[in-house]
């Protein structure tokens, strides 16, 4: 019975069907299955399948995003049961994400968030126009492994440097890695401000994040 359910779970991810993914998660809980097993044997199989199809050029970005969203919904549905059992999903690391202060451009940052969480990171997305202090506070609060900073304008890009400088001044720079992104961000800029990594797109951001946490 569980085998069949796991197959359906995997399929719900491949289809990017949030509702089906959530319904199957509830079914698993009702049947007394271990939520961690449901994730690893059911849903993750779907994520891997979509990932592989993407690598082979058979699936495209919207399918990755939808699979990511379905995965997020499934995990969120299983969360209370995991808590009740005192188990926790092992993640690759915690990432605090934000578009910097003065900048309202959202889509790139959100896309990176979806990709990272689908890849197994725990993502805290603070949204857009977020003050430096707020980003650092959140990173400390959740003991983030990575801070991800998005900026689309050359005039707001300077806030990426501000976050790194503030971390330096507070003696916190060694505790967290910093990734930056956004259309005007270049390798030179990354070196200049002393960030740990950058990527021009969301797919690349996942490999950079994995490298940074040694996964």
């Amino acid at each position: 019975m569980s085998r069949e359910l796991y197959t359906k779970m995997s399929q719900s991810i491949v289809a990017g069907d949030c509702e089906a993914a959530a319904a199957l998660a509830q079914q698993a809980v009702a049947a007394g299955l271990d939520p961690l097993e449901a994730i690893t044997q059911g849903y993750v199989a779907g994520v891997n399948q979509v990932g592989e199809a993407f690598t082979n050029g058979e699936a495209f970005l919207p399918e990755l995003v939808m699979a990511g969203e379905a995965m997020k919904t499934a995990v969120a549905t299983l969360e209370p049961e995991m808590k009740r059992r005192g188990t926790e999903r092992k993640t690759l690391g915690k990432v605090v994400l934000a578009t910097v202060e003065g900048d309202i451009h959202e889509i790139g940052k959100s896309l990176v968030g979806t990709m990272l969480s689908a890849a197994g990171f725990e993502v805290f997305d603070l949204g857009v126009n977020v003050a430096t202090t707020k980003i650092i506070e959140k990173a400390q609060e959740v003991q983030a492994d990575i801070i991800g900073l998005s900026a689309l304008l050359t005039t707001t890009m300077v806030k990426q440097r501000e976050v790194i400088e503030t971390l330096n001044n507070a003696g916190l720079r060694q505790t967290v890695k910093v990734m930056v992104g956004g259309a005007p961000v270049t390798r030179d800029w990354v070196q200049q401000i002393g960030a740990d990594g950058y990527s021009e797109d969301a797919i690349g951001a996942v490999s950079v994040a994995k490298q940074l946490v040694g996964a």
Partner: protein
Amino acid sequence: MTNKIKSITNPKISLNILSDEEVQRIHQATLQIIEKVGVRFPSLKTLALWEEFGATVDHEKMVVRVKADTIEKALKNAPPIFTLGAQDIQQDCPLDGNHVFLATDGCGVEVIDIHTGNRRVSSLQDVADIAHIADGTEEIGFHWVALSAQDKPAETRGLHEIKAVWSNSTKHVQTESIYHETEARIAVEMAVALAGGKQELRNHPVLSLMQCTASPLGQDGGSLDAALIAAEAGIPTGFMTMAANLTTGPATLSGNLVVGNAEVISALALIQLAFPGAPVFYAAAQTASDLRSGAYTGGGPEDFLYGAATNRLADFYNIPLSMGAFATGAKEPNWQAGVENSLSSFMACISMSDMLLGAGFLHGSRIWSYAQMMLDCEIFAIVHKMMQGIAVDDESLAIDTIAAVGPGGNFLSQKHTLKHMRKIFLPQFMDRRPYNVWEEKGDNARDWAIAKALNKLENHHPHPLDPKLEAELEKMISSLEMGIAHEAKH
């Protein structure tokens, strides 16, 4: 010495990309979205204005919903024709529906150095150099500030940039890099000084401002405030959508046009409600996102279709259009750059987009290349020639000349040939040399294009700005910088 501008006018060829009924359906869908879904206007000033004009305002989400009637009536106040003023009035750009003017593209962050060929971060001197070369290039009708002056403070960068262009060229300046109220106020002051008075600026705007929307269905607060300041002073103001299939717009082309259209016409309607009759323009650089990475592509068949379709929409509203063409995604001036920039500019030109943006960029408007700038100008020159179409009259049919040569002769020594041969396009950057010459020389179009740009930088001498005026402009910028420093202290 006045340098003439090459613009496309009196086109002989045309394209029917959307029927009247299709345009009407896009328009109606747009109105429905603005009325039922709404558009985000994240500026307290504009929300208050919208409320005053009878829109439904969700203050928490900063989203306004506007009745179709309000939008339609407001847009009717927009002037269908106005002129982008140049310091040299011979270089004015009339946006009258019968001209296409090419500008440099903007606003990038890196430049391939003209001397070393190395890629590096852009500075104010680059803005000045590009303006200098563009001033001496007939295909360039007006300027967009091409690069970000990253060696200047973020708060006044946009002002340093426009001053650098004015100091190196008599052509009109349009910027997309002034998007805060305080900076816009100083920009207006500077433009007034350059025009010689407030009314003079209104009559002959030497500056225009372009703002970006925040797709999907959003605006940027600072941009809105800056646009209102500019519009009040009579400075032409436009809003550009870059809504892209898959990411910031739906996967379908007409759906993506609806998203972009809702952003642009809602912003332009607001300007018209606040300042009826203010010169405004429609601007767009819509494209498809890449299926694999989600990145902005700046090319591809969808991009080219938007180039022509958007002008149909702007014409429907009777508002001039600034169309984002060129802007290849290629990393260097190559096959991809040639295909993308030719097709995108052709589609925007054949529909007679008033302003064409723009020459000079690689990697989706991020990296400036002087070679690409010159090559883009050649593409524009080719399209310019094509738009003249084929003349059919007694002289061009050449019956007597054909009869004189008869079967088997040639036309090289005919007077008719001598008379008309200079109308045949002669490229600057196409390699038509014999194979062995190409093999021996080993150079190519890129080398010739760079040499041409370098030659203009060294041998073209732009008309300098009056030193007194230049000092005055500098003082306006530094007053804002001192004000900011003063504020920071307290």
